[in-house]
């Protein structure tokens, strides 16, 4: 048995680790409610008079507001189209393509190997030539590479986990392939698909490089945040903290769903191997 001292040390180490995981985020959140003079102190302040000025500033700032709107539009459109095209394709790959399916899946995965710059640079030139540079539509189109491939990548195993007998039973009751997909596979796989959707959302919501290069004027939130943070020495730290909090909130909102996705992936992985 492990000696008591070792166990206490292990507990302490764990506590420290949780602190390391969360403290940076919490510290930033705290900073968002501080006035500048509470931030620029030689000794960090844990207690201070909270203010909402920083949030008022960013919500009143048209660049940030536009960034928020652009982000929502771009993310909603690209994730929506990605799901619409990717989910049926994933079902077909999981069920109807025994031989060629592996090759297609490798192709889809290889798109994720593609360095983003290798997409950004040609498209910036093409968009300039076509006159659709700096448009949200152009950004959405490029994001489809990420969303469709990620949806297929994550949804294929989700559909593979639907027991084939259930789909066969539905076929025996006269359902066509499309009906089997719509009335049986989709609802049964829905929880995992939802996780895949969230994952894809987080990827696109967080994306910087493509947004920066292809839509510098119609900037999304990460671009706006990046541009504020690289202002140099004279920085409105509190405002930046607040902007970060706004940027961070939506993905964090989905933490439980991501956990569910991990759980279901791992449990089914264990089942197929064991």
């Amino acid at each position, binding site marked *: 048995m492990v000696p008591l001292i070792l166990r206490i040390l292990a507990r302490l180490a764990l506590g420290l680790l949780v602190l390391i995981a969360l403290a940076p*985020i919490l510290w930033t959140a705290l900073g968002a409610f501080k006035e500048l003079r509470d931030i620029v102190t030689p000794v960090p302040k844990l207690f201070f008079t909270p203010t909402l000025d920083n949030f008022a500033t960013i919500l009143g700032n048209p660049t940030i507001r536009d960034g928020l709107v652009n982000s929502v539009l771009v993310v909603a459109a690209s994730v929506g189209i990605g799901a619409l*095209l990717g989910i049926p394709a994933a*079902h077909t790959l999981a069920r109807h393509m025994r031989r060629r399916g592996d090759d297609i899946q490798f192709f889809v995965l290889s798109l994720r190997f593609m360095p983003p710059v290798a997409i950004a640079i040609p498209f910036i030139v093409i968009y300039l030539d076509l006159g659709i540079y700096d448009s949200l539509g152009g950004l959405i189109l490029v994001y489809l590479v990420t969303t469709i491939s990620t949806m297929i990548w994550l949804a294929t195993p989700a559909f593979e986990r639907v027991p084939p007998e259930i789909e066969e039973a539905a076929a025996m009751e006269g359902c066509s392939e499309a009906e089997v997909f719509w009335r049986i596979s989709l609802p049964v796989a829905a929880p995992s698909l939802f996780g895949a959707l969230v994952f894809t959302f987080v990827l696109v919501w967080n994306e910087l*490089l493509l947004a920066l290069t292809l839509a510098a004027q119609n900037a999304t939130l990460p671009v706006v945040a*990046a541009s504020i943070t690289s202002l140099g020495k004279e920085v409105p730290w509190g405002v930046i903290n607040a902007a970060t909090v706004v940027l961070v909130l939506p993905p964090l909102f989905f*933490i439980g769903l991501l956990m569910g996705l991990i759980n279901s992936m791992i449990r089914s992985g264990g089942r197929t191997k064991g």
Partner: protein
Amino acid sequence: MTRQRFILLTLAPALTVLGLLAAVSTAGAVWFSLMNRVLGSPDYEFVGLYNYLRLLRDKRFFNALEISLIWELITVAGTLVVAVLLAVLVHETVKRALWRNLICFAFLAPVLLPRVAAAFIWRFLYSPSLGLLNWIVGEAGLGPVEFLANPSLALVSVAVVDIWQWGLFFTVILVKLLETMPRDPIEAAMLDNARTWQIHAYVTLPMLKGPLISLALVKAVESLRSFDLIFVMTGGGPGTATETLDLYAYQSGINLGGRVSYASAMSILLLIVTTVAFTLIWRASRKWSR
């Protein structure tokens, strides 16, 4: 609707969009790399392989290649080592499901942060004048450390953020994998009087070889996309101490000068190297994990 038509209708749209976008960007990059185009100037001509030949004499390109390789090594190895150690620690010390789930939630938070946000948070922490870390270091009597301005520290300091995000995330995955592992071999090892660390070193971790290799692969792919983190934290500096290939391609192609043809040549090389490397690793990993 027949089966064949259903297959076609579901697959064709997705694969067409993916195929077109991939083909356009690759063909576009190849095509532009043979020109001497500069953003904002309408004139350009065909220059053949000139851009590639110039790359081979570009010291900054080889510096970026080296930085990229070091970055890959540090982040992949760091993430896996951190994840394995922490997962074993959590698995062995926390037995209550509630606590374990709470810890997992805490560990999941960093990876969900937008990289821009993570980069900013840590830049704030690293800041020499008002950062929390420098205050701690200062209290310890070590004076202010220029985490991001010191060329020999900068890359590691940025890598720490990457490992903070991904190492903790992989810890959660490994904890879940350890939970769902079949108990029999572990119990057999316990009956053989193995110590805890021996059980993990000789039984559980070898059993997790397949997932660990997959995780390493995922991380290697993800490390290639660290542009956001480095861009916000250091912008490639100080000097070129943290300038990876994608950063250099961005700087030369878009930010400064807009030499898109030169940047295209670079991204084509990057594309070839990563595709070859990952195809080989992918094949090999399928063999190893068996």
